[in-house]
Each structure stands twice: as structure tokens, then as C-alpha cells.
């Protein structure tokens, strides 16, 4: 597992994304409940938690698909919780979706060029033709994700693995500073999972900060510098993958009991992770 290679000194100054007391209510239900965390530039930040913990709702609120009930979201120091989805994209935030969303009637290039042309920077009025620069950016992003050979294939009938790569490619085409991945490896076999993880590492080395939600623990733990575990829309625990796996509160939430194997002595507290009191 990749240890924290010279993690940024302190998270305070280089925070690219900062979520401050964020809440999102659907009727009476608090899907996200006064959640605060920060993600530093260049870091890979994993989000875990059981079903209904509010992970996707958190993503929707950051990306502008849902309005935060209260609290602030800062990206590169600017507040974005009230901005529209496409404006947030122009700031440099790109995301993928849990249910693979592709444009079924467009080809692979057609999907990616939308990110390349519209996501790159705001345009007053769309031009009459795609400029070659956008087309090149799109082709580069497609081959970056390993779809260089399938540019003219219609996206609708593509297998799940290609659709997941296509979403990443079209996100990268808008040259984001932050890439949010919602279950990038869900439903894939082991070989495909490894390939996606390799792609995410390529994204990291391109200097893009990655925040990802994932159920497949093997993948999440191996790719994340730090992991946040959510439950009931609240922060349960935040720390390095090792801290998370050793932390009995997290195990209790997942497995329901401290397993026979005694949790490692280094209780979570001495790690830099912090635990929120587990609200009823």
C-alpha cells in the first residue's frame, strides 16, 4: 500500500477543497449532517461508509447537483455551494457518477469532446464548429483513459468497464484541478479494478487532486492517501488507511463487533485521524 509519501506539511494552507459544517436535508432526513473536512492539493482522499451514509449526496452537493441546506463548500478559497453545476465545472471540478452516465447516441469522442469543449472554460456563445484544439484535447483524454482505439464507437452499448473509463476521460478532457469519482470500480472484475486503479494513479501523477467514493475496500485502501468514513451523514472517522482498518469503531459499524483478532494496540487516537462522537 502506498504510505503517505511526504504528505503536505499541514492541511491548513494547501486545502484545495474545504467542506465546512455542510448539511443536506431531504424532508426530515439529514442525508449530510454538519460535515467538515478538507482535501489538500494533489492528495487522494477516499470516502467510505455503509449504504445510506450520505456519500453520494455529499458529492451531489459539492458538484452543484443538489443545493446544500446549510454550511459552506470552498474550492480554491472560493465558496461554491450556491453556484450552478456548469459554473462549478468551469472552476475545475469534474465528477463521474455511480450509475454510469454516458451519452448513448454520441460516440466515445462525442462524449469526451463535450468535456473538452464546454468544460475547459466558460464560453459566451458556443461556436459553429468544434475547434481542432478541443478535438485534440478530447482525443488525448480518450487515449489517456485507454479508449484511443474506440473513438468512433457509439457509447450506448459499450461494456460497463469502458463506460467507467469514458466518464473519467470526459472529466479529464475539461482539465480539472479536482476529480470526484463515485464508485469508479463498482461492479468490475479484479483485472478491470486494477486497470482503473492504474488510471487513477495516472490522474494523480498528472497533478489532479482525487476524491473518491468506493465500496470495494481493497481498491479504496490501496489508492487513498487519507480516508474518511461516514455514517448517518456524519463524519465517523478520518485518517490513513491503516488507521481506518485498525479502528474498532469503524469495524463495529461495518462488522458490528470487535473481531476475535484484537485490534492493533495503536488505537486510532495517536494517529492524526480524529473521531467525531458517534451520534445516536
Amino acid at each position, binding site marked *: 500500500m502506498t504510505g503517505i509519501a511526504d504528505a503536505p506539511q499541514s492541511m491548513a494552507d494547501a486545502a484545495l477543497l474545504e467542506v465546512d459544517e455542510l448539511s443536506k436535508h431531504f424532508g426530515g432526513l439529514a442525508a449530510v449532517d454538519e460535515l467538515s473536512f478538507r482535501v489538500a492539493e494533489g492528495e487522494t482522499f477516499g470516502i467510505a461508509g455503509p449504504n445510506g451514509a450520505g456519500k453520494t449526496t455529499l458529492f451531489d452537493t459539492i*458538484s*452543484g*447537483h443538489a443545493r446544500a441546506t446549510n454550511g459552506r463548500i470552498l474550492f480554491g478559497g472560493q465558496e461554491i455551494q450556491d453556484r*450552478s*453545476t*456548469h*459554473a462549478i*465545472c*468551469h472552476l475545475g471540478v*469534474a*465528477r463521474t*457518477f455511480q*450509475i*454510469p*452516465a*454516458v*451519452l*448513448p*447516441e*454520441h*460516440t466515445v*469522442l*462525442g462524449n469526451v*469532446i*463535450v*468535456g473538452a*469543449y*464546454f*468544460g*475547459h472554460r*466558460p464560453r459566451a*456563445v*458556443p*461556436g*459553429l*464548429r*468544434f*475547434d*481542432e484544439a478541443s*478535438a485534440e484535447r478530447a*482525443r488525448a483524454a480518450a487515449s489517456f483513459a485507454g479508449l484511443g482505439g474506440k*473513438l*468512433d464507437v*457509439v*457509447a*450506448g*452499448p459499450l461494456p460497463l468497464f469502458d*463506460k467507467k473509463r469514458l466518464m473519467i476521460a*470526459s*472529466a479529464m478532457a*475539461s482539465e480539472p484541478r479536482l476529480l470526484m469519482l463515485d464508485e469508479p470500480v463498482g461492479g468490475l472484475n479484479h483485472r478491470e479494478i486494477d486497470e482503473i486503479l492504474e488510471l487513477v494513479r495516472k490522474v494523480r501523477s498528472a497533478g489532479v487532486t482525487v476524491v473518491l467514493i468506493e465500496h470495494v475496500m481493497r481498491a479504496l485502501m490501496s489508492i487513498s492517501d487519507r480516508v474518511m468514513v461516514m455514517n448517518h451523514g456524519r463524519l465517523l472517522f478520518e485518517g490513513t488507511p491503516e488507521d481506518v482498518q485498525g479502528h474498532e469503531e469503524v469495524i463495529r459499524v461495518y462488522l458490528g463487533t470487535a473481531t476475535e483478532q484484537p485490534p492493533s494496540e495503536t488505537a486510532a487516537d495517536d494517529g492524526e485521524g480524529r473521531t467525531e462522537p458517534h451520534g445516536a
Partner: protein
Amino acid sequence: MAAGSDDARSALVREMGWRRPNLFAVAGVLILAAMLPLVWRNDYVIDVALTALIWMILNQSWNLQLGIGGIWNFGQLALFAIGGYGAALVSLHWGSPPWLAMIVGGLAAAAASAVVGIPVLRLRGIYASLLTFSFGEVVRLLVISDESGLTGGSFGLSGVPDLAFGGLSPDARQRAYYWVALALVVVTAVVVHAFIQSPLGTALKALRDAPGYAASRGVSPLKMQVITFGMSAFIAGIAGGFYAHYFGVIAPSVMGLGPMSLFVAMLVVGGLGTFAGPLVGTALIMVISEYLRDYDEMRLIIVGVILLVTIVLAPRGLVPLLQDAWRRLQRWMAEDEAGDRGGPEEAASDPPTASGAGAQEEVTR
């Protein structure tokens, strides 16, 4: 540098899956269409063909929104009528040259679309249909009940001046109008074709198939849809203006459920969201509808039944059906050649199922 150079352009067209129209076929059809008034000297047939051309302009503009853009507008007929009335009023009262009047008609329709568009484009599908359908009916009823003479009430406005073909003999005048209509259809087709291959068209299709996804890639929904709504309304207005100048009259009877069923049938039978759909559909339904000319009630019953049968059995219309069949035919022929090379090149992919984002869960009601 713009994708001007030919090889870069053709590479992009191939990769984007855009269909380059087969130039010979297009040229052939155009020549045939242009020759029609000369070959077929019967003015009834030319009149029907000319009306079909006007409906082709209108349906192409409607398909731009409903089919390609996924904007649920069922008030296009009202925009068409507003264009007609606009042109008629301007040329009747201000005596402005008819060509200018047609443009004014187009602008009037575009303006109306802006007024209706702002609330409509923020609505979820079915509410947009309700509001635009009601808008159409309200405009019709408003014109019918207008006694102020402005719109001529249920009889509409008559005596709308000619498009500067007054001096010609009736036959020559009809032929001149025919060729202008044909030109307008071609211009609209070029605009629609360019639209589909433009960033705007690509963005609209994206908004139609996966709105959340498109917005997260930087497409601003309201701006794109307002532009398309305006463009489509302008074209519909022009068609309305041309209709008024050709027939010399514009009346509320162009609107209403009957006419609308005709146009919806043309769009649905042809194939919503395709380039050729509106053209094929209009021609087909026009032939059927004229064939039933003398049993009037039966005409709309038959058209209604055709619309019902088509929408239920083949919701995507004829053109996609023909395209799938053609593609299967080509793949079948390809398999034949590959027969000796041990099986088809690529696994026969099953017919394109639901859009990726749509089928999270099979809706087995």
C-alpha cells in the same frame, strides 16, 4: 486553428459518428423536386407539394427542439401562426416589402418563444408540455375571440400581398413560390445539419440524454436551450410568413388539435431526433392525408390511428428503424464476406438498450 483543413475535418466527422450525406442521393432528390412543377403541370399537385414543403420547414424546426434538443414544446404551431400574423400585419399595415415582412414574422415568433421559453425551459418535462400546449390553445382562442380587427378574429387576415411575384401568370407564380419554398427547405436542412454537427447541437443532445451529466461537463442548460428555442421559433415564424404570403390569408384554423395531430404524426412517423425524419415523415403523411382528401372525418381518424400505432410499436419512428435494418443488412453482408474467415468481426452487439443513465433498474411494472 479551426478544423478547417479537410482531412482533420473528415477525421472529426468519422470519429463523432456524424453521417456525411450521400451527395449523389441528395442531388438526385433535389433535381427531382425542382423538376416537379415543370413535369407535372397539374396545379393541384403542385399546390399539395408546395404545402408539403412548408410543413417540412415547420417540422424541421420543431424537430430541432422536440427531437434533437429534447425540449418538450407542444406550442410550435402557435409560433408558426405568430410568424404568419406578424408578416401579414407588417406587410398589410406598413406596406413593407414582403421579404422583410417574412423576416419580421420570424423575429416575432422568436420573441414570443423568449417570453414563453423563460418559464418553460426551467420546467421538468411534462410541465413544459402542459404549458406550451396550453400556450398554443390560448393563442388560438385569443385570436378567434378578437373583435378589434387587428387579427381579423376567426376569419383571420386576408389580402396578404405577394412575394413580388404579382406580375407573373398564376402558373408561373405558383412555380416561383414552389422553388422559393424548396430553397427554404434546403436552407433549413443545411441549418439543421450544421446544428447537429455543431457544439450547440452536441450539447443539446447531451442535455436531452443525460442532463445532470451534461451540466457537470460545463454545458449551461438554460443558455443552450434558449438559443435553440429561439432558432427553432425563428424558422417556424419564417415558414408562417411564407404561408401567409403564398395563400394570401392567415387564420387561426392553422392551429388547433387537428392540424397539430397532422404534424406530430409527421414527426413521430418520420423519426424524432433524426435529420431525415421530419422530411420523410412529412412526405409520407402528406401523401396519405391528400389521398383521403374527400372523406374529411376519415382523414384525421386514419392519421390519428397511424400516429397511435407508430408511437406504440416504434416510438423512435421509421428512419431509425430503417437505419437499424440497413446497418443489420450491412453487417449481415459483412458476415457473408467474413464467412470464410471464421465468424463475424465483432460480436453481434444486441440492439442499443436504454441510455446508460436511464436504466438503473429494469422497470418491470
